């Protein structure tokens, strides 16, 4: 299976912050690759570098074997790109946007476009500026697919869409994938979307590609281990696969990738009173994997302590 997208040590700085850090990625033909990451993790920057819109400070990206910064128009015609927020010319009607886009392509599947517009009940006379976010996303998808691309690169395509429209959009995307074995790379921070569509996922954390594996493998290999102690829990020793370790009262919660005998023996060596190994769904796994030491604001703890002080006053 030839690689459609290859990056070597791709790095991009914004001021002194590394938005993308030494990223090596391969996306094979026919694959649906879900790029996950929190806001500001570098997903959009990576996608823009793949399309030659942003210049890397270091490393290189290749699409269809051509350097991204020097993509020939003929190669660009094989790639559909849905930018974040679905930028289209607001003054155009849907029909004008179709006519404008069609003028650039030799292969244009007009009947498929009609089918998609009809399916989404989009009038050709509707002004783009009057469309909702969801409808703009649908127009963008229709324009992208009508050009019969071999590679679709979608930057957070479901951002800002309500649940129903999002589901509809994804189902259309699945149909497109099934129609012909197209390669799709899409970024999202909605885990359900990724789980539904992607064969393989990549997780970007602060510009670093921390995970690049099949979706099922990621779900299966990440575990939450809860060790319960009678008093202050000891530190868990550093080891391979340990993502995070935090203390919650008399418990120590560990997030471990590729949980195995080595981790179990280390945990038992701490002599906990009880030990739970919990499987996680993709969403929980992603959250635990990406959020690092930050936790929710301790508002409820504050309320709890307020309540305690109130009850203490009452007792007094």
């Amino acid at each position, binding site marked *: 299976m030839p690689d459609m997208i290859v990056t070597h040590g791709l790095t991009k700085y914004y001021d002194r912050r590394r938005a993308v850090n030494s990223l090596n990625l391969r996306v094979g033909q026919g694959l649906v690759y879900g790029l996950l990451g929190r806001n500001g993790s570098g997903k*959009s920057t990576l996608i823009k570098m793949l399309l030659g819109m942003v210049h890397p400070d270091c490393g290189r990206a290749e699409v269809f074997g051509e350097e991204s910064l020097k993509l020939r128009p003929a190669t660009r015609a094989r790639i559909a790109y849905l930018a974040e927020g679905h930028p289209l010319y607001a003054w155009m009607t849907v029909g004008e946007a179709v006519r404008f886009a069609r003028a650039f392509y030799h292969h244009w599947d007009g009947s498929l476009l009609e089918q998609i517009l009809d399916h989404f009940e989009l009038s050709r006379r509707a002004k783009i500026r009057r469309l909702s976010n969801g409808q703009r996303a649908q127009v963008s998808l229709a324009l992208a697919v009508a050009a019969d691309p071999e590679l679709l690169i979608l930057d957070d395509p479901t951002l800002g869409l309500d649940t129903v429209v999002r589901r509809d959009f994804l189902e259309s995307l699945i149909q497109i994938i099934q129609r012909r074995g197209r390669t799709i790379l899409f970024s999202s921070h909605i885990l359900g979307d990724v789980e539904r569509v992607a064969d393989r996922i990549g997780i970007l954390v602060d510009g670093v590609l921390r995970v690049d594996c099949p979706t099922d493998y990621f779900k299966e290999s990440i575990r939450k281990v809860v060790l319960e102690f009678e008093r202050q829990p000891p530190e868990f020793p550093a080891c391979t696969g340990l993502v995070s370790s935090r203390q919650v009262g008399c418990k120590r919660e560990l997030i471990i990738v590729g949980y195995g005998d080595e981790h179990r023996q280390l945990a038992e060596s701490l002599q906990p009173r009880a030990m739970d190994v919990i499987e996680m769904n993709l969403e929980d796994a992603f959250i635990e994997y990406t959020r690092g030491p930050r936790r929710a604001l301790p508002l409820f703890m504050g309320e709890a302590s307020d309540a305690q002080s109130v009850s203490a006053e009452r007792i007094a």
Partner: protein
Amino acid sequence: MLKALVLKELRETAWIAAVGLLAHLGFVANCTGHAVLPFWTIRGSLEIPFLDSGFLASFCFVSVAIAVTLGLRQTAVESGRGTWLFLLHRPVSVRRILAAKLAVGLGLYLLCGLIPILSYAAWAAMPGKHPSPFYWWMTADAWMAWCVICIVYLAAFLAGIRPARWFGTRLLPLAGAGLLAVVSVLAFIFWPVLGIAVLLLLAACLLGLILFTARTRDFS
């Protein structure tokens, strides 16, 4: 595809040219003794056309306004609305996209300047319209301004396309263009051939900078 690009640019900028042309024609009407708006002082019918009718000042003012608005509309608005990403991903070279934009922008600017100069000259050339003689050389300053303000359009285009942290630095090319326009005007006055050479050189530099900026900047 070039037709689609040109039509798109025309749809986006024709209104600027239309408003500019109306303003130009208003000033021409004023210079030929017609008051378009009630508060405008009627002038011109007793003055020497192009030389002391105030035409040149109003022509420069409106032309600069058209040039700056066109240049920024074609670039900064694409950046502001994020449509560069949509446009630049079309399977056509960046050079062609820029060529279409510049051809439409310059074409509209030149047309907007050509019509008032010719209209005013045609009126001035008609016998009995004003008490002074008319020679075509009297229009030379207007033509010079028409050419020199092309530099302002290109500078506005460059200002809109280059990334900048704030408006002060973004407008740097425009400020530079103001100075360069003065240099070309001076060159025109003392030696017209040198003036044309300076103007062409400046235009070539600005076009090169526009292409270089479009190729090296990040569209993020």
